């Protein structure tokens, strides 16, 4: 595979996994801006396993998942009692703490960053294999009693508890699983870039993950997947559009008054280098909030798309 395309798809895939890690606790109504922090924990945990202990990559991935999950449960306990904007701030604070530890912990290179993480050449397959496992996981969860219990907690926590749902444990489970998923994503990221530092998993990444989910829609797991894929590929898509502009014959621009200037302006506009992608994200977010605040995909649209397997009762 073309290495450029491959790296684009790998990062898109990691974004998709990260977006699903946001969706997991969100199913019970917990909004976390700390998923980037969990990715950081996973990245460093896996790095310690492969670099410091010399153990194989899969061991690193599993350890990253388990370790991040435990950290997630620890963060989940205080998160149980608070919600809304306060939970956002708590998780944001957690992501900050992770950054500061990464910046100051000498064992993993402190401010020099964690270097020399072994490169995993099959990352593409690991990433997309994980995505398939997660899709299977979420599709089963969605149609299960546990999944319904989670949604009921999101809808009305007190009513759910009175209906016999063990709200505390299910919320902790959801938060912990979200952390596991994020940790694995971070571990795969680290073994693809071979270098991570405190800035790799900053607040901005947490906000981006939130954006993936908001743009894609959060009533079904397909929303975050689509949102992450769409926003990650959009800047490259626009750049491709620019490259295609070069195919426009000169005669066309000459024919339009001020054609040259428009052409140059568009050409400049569509040139999305890495940092400029945030402009696209911001614009997409604003447009989405106006024309489709519920996100690209909702439960209803998915049900309509899957009309052939709509459950029916003919008795």
């Amino acid at each position, binding site marked *: 595979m073309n290495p450029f395309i491959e790296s684009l798809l790998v990062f898109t895939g990691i974004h998709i996994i990260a977006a699903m890690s946001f969706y997991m606790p969100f199913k019970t109504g917990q909004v976390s801006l700390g998923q980037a922090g969990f990715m950081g924990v996973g990245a460093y945990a896996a790095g310690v396993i492969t670099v410091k202990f010399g153990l194989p990559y899969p061991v690193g991935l599993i350890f990253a998942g388990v370790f991040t999950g435990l950290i997630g449960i620890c963060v989940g306990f205080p998160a149980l009692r608070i919600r809304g904007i306060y939970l956002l701030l708590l998780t944001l604070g957690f992501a900050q703490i992770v950054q500061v530890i990464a910046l100051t912990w000498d064992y993993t290179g402190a401010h020099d960053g964690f270097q020399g993480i072994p490169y995993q050449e099959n990352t593409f397959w690991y990433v997309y294999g994980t995505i398939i496992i997660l899709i299977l*996981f979420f599709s*089963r*969860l969605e*149609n*299960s*009693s*546990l*999944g*319904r*219990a989670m*949604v*009921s907690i999101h*809808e*009305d926590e*007190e*009513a*759910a*508890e*009175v*209906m*016999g*749902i*063990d*709200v505390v*444990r*299910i919320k902790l*489970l959801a938060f912990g699983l979200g952390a596991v998923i994020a940790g694995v994503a971070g571990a795969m990221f680290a073994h693809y870039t071979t270098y991570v530092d405190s800035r790799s998993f900053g607040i901005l990444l947490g906000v981006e993950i939130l954006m993936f989910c908001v743009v894609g829609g959060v*009533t079904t797991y397909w929303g975050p997947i689509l949102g992450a894929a769409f926003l990650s590929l959009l800047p490259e898509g626009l750049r491709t559009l620019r490259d295609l502009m070069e195919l426009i014959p000169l005669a066309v621009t000459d024919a339009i008054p001020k054609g040259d200037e428009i052409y140059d302006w568009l050409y400049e506009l569509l040139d999305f280098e890495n940092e400029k992608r945030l402009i696209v994200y911001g614009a997409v977010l604003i447009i989405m909030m106006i024309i489709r605040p519920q996100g690209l995909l909702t*439960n209803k649209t998915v049900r309509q798309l899957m009309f052939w397997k709509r459950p029916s*009762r003919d008795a």
Partner: protein
Amino acid sequence: MPEASTHCTLHAEGLTKRFGGFYALRDVTIDVQEGHIHAVIGPNGAGKTTLFNALSGTLAVDSGEITFENQRLEMLKPYRRTALGIARTFQNIRLFEHMTVIENVMVGAHSRSYSALWGAFSGAVLHRPFAQPAVEKTMRDRAFELLDFMGLGQKMDENAEDLAYGERRRLEIARALAIEPRLLLLDEPAAGMNPNETHELDEHIKRIRDRGVTIVLVEHDMNLVMGISDQITVLNFGEKIAEGSPSTIQSDPVVIEAYLGEEEVL
């Protein structure tokens, strides 16, 4: 009047709940006989809903004890009480609005199908491909049966938020029945209903009682209360002022004064 059975399902004694200097409940004692429809009435602010919250566990009482079938309840969290067989509805209907009607009922059945989180997790995720676990099918059938019982079978795939008012009330009851309760607490089930709907509700409540569920209900509709109750407890300003059969209550001077006193203020 039929002779009350001697077996007492729910016994609450000396329940007291203070909000600052205000007593929402003051030394309230209530005995609910098995198989009865037991109404709790009283003017607005008498503490009826507070009593319900205390019984279902969404509100901790300051003192007093609650016993349900020889189990002490005061220290148990709401979901533990539900597991023991106590279900409730809310005065302001609290459905899971964005879930379908049948899903709402299936949430009620969750605690009956899976007692442990691991069971629920493995039941959700670890099963044969292309197959639904048998538990899931049982839950769905049972939920459908309850919807049918409450006259909502046709609406199973609609979102709860799209139902008409009376249907929403009935769905809340169906959801509570999915818990397979032995005690059902109904908080103003007839509020906002027209006489026709109230009459239907009356029938439903009796049929639920006939299924072997003991019912405690808070209600303002006196026709409904006097018609179906075996026993009535009257609260006023957080205190129990009278208790007895509908005919005793109707002629009790203290009760009449409590209600007429309110009429005068209006």
